């Protein structure tokens, strides 16, 4: 098993594009190492991207934020500004696993592991994040909701990596929130994840919203209908009911050891409403 730690994007792309056998990108390693130990994957080549400067930086860009794909959840939490602008995204990244896992886990890895239950992905999608990919054919941008196509299925082609994510500029009176349901208080994989981002006008009416649900379908969903249900409202009870109904309708969950279909649908509705109320509260005071 080869291990390479290139220092440039081009170097990483060349290694991955030229790999003969199974190759894997290593960022935080909190999924890859577990899968290797469990014999689920046996790569011939591991490409560690953490030495590539662009994957480790958090910078302001065009009024928004560019976050490197290999920035850890703990680093996001420690960033002085990010959690004020995107509290939901930061809290989502810091719900992955434990303190120890957050010390290593990254947004890029969480997305590319391809699990619809990934904690940071609904928050990234609700934020309207766009992934910047680099591959043998050059760079391209892809909205995060278009990256994960299904369990362990990504829209990345051979040799492509995610370099960073761009979060759009934040209008005034905007905020986000992420909630997940787990049976314990920590450590579990999300049974349901709900990310909501919204913007208010001066009067407190929602003028823009994005709602994303995780762990309730084969991929993380961007639920347009749920956003439509609350845009133009002040998230009063009828709007909340519409929101819940839209969340329910979007779910196509499975029955598994973590939750039944019925349970996931019920809880998706509840969490979407609760996350929206938190985002609303944050947006009012932002």
């Amino acid at each position, binding site marked *: 098993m080869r291990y390479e730690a290139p220092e440039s994007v081009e170097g990483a792309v060349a290694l991955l594009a030229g790999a003969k056998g199974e190759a894997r990108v290593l960022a935080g390693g909190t999924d890859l*190492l*577990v899968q290797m130990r469990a014999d689920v994957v046996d790569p011939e080549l591991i490409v560690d991207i953490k030495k590539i400067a662009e994957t480790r930086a958090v910078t302001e860009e065009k009024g928004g934020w560019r976050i490197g794909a290999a920035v850890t959840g*703990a680093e996001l939490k420690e960033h002085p500004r990010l959690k004020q602008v995107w509290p939901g995204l930061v809290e989502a990244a810091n719900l992955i*696993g434990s*303190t120890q896992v957050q*010390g290593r886990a990254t947004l890029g890895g969480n997305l590319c592991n391809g699990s619809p239950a990934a904690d940071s992905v609904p928050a990234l999608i609700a934020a309207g994040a766009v992934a910047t990919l680099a591959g043998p054919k050059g760079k391209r941008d892809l909205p995060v909701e278009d990256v994960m196509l299904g369990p362990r299925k990504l829209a990345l082609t051979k040799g492509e990596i995610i370099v960073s994510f761009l979060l759009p500029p934040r209008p005034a009176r905007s905020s986000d929130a992420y909630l997940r349901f787990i049976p314990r*208080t920590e450590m579990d994989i999300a049974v349901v994840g709900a990310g909501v981002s919204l913007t208010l006008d001066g009067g407190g009416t929602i003028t823009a919203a994005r709602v994303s649900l995780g762990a309730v379908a084969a991929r993380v969903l961007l639920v347009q209908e749920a956003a439509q249900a609350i845009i133009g409202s002040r998230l009063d009870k009828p709007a909340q009911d519409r929101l819940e109904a839209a969340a329910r309708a979007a779910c196509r969950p499975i029955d598994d050891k973590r939750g039944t279909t019925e349970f996931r649908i019920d809880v998706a509705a509840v969490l979407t409403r609760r996350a929206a109320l938190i985002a609303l509260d944050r947006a009012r005071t932002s």
Partner: protein
Amino acid sequence: MAKHHIEAKVNGDPVEFLCETEDTLLDVLRDTLSLTGSKEGCSSGDCGACSVILDGRLVCSCLVLGCEVGGRSVETIEGMAKGETLHPLQKRFLEAAALQCGICTPGFLVASRALLEKTTNPTEHEVRYWLAGNLCRCTGYDKIVTAVMDTAAAMRKG
């Protein structure tokens, strides 16, 4: 495939070792460097018994490859005491009977140390959530949490 030759710092001492790509930092610590204080409970990052501090960051050593730590600094349970002087946390754990079988204790001590280096006045809630990645099956966590908070208080007094 030739092994990787890695130079790093462990508990302040420079070390050199060879490892395969798939060897985790935990494997290297235990099997190559004979530092068996970090324990293997699950190899999937779910129990925290292998906790170490990597460049100042609390991590599970079972989730880090040995070949990733070149040029880096690793602190394990073995480096917590200074000579014969135990770290206040180690001392308090003993006085408060915050361990029974002791297998989780190194992980808890390293994790608690990382917490107290970040926050000098954690609440009970903060302590419990910070330590949620460290499993204990013997104590029910009560005496561990109390010991961490008491140590924080004692360290604040100076």
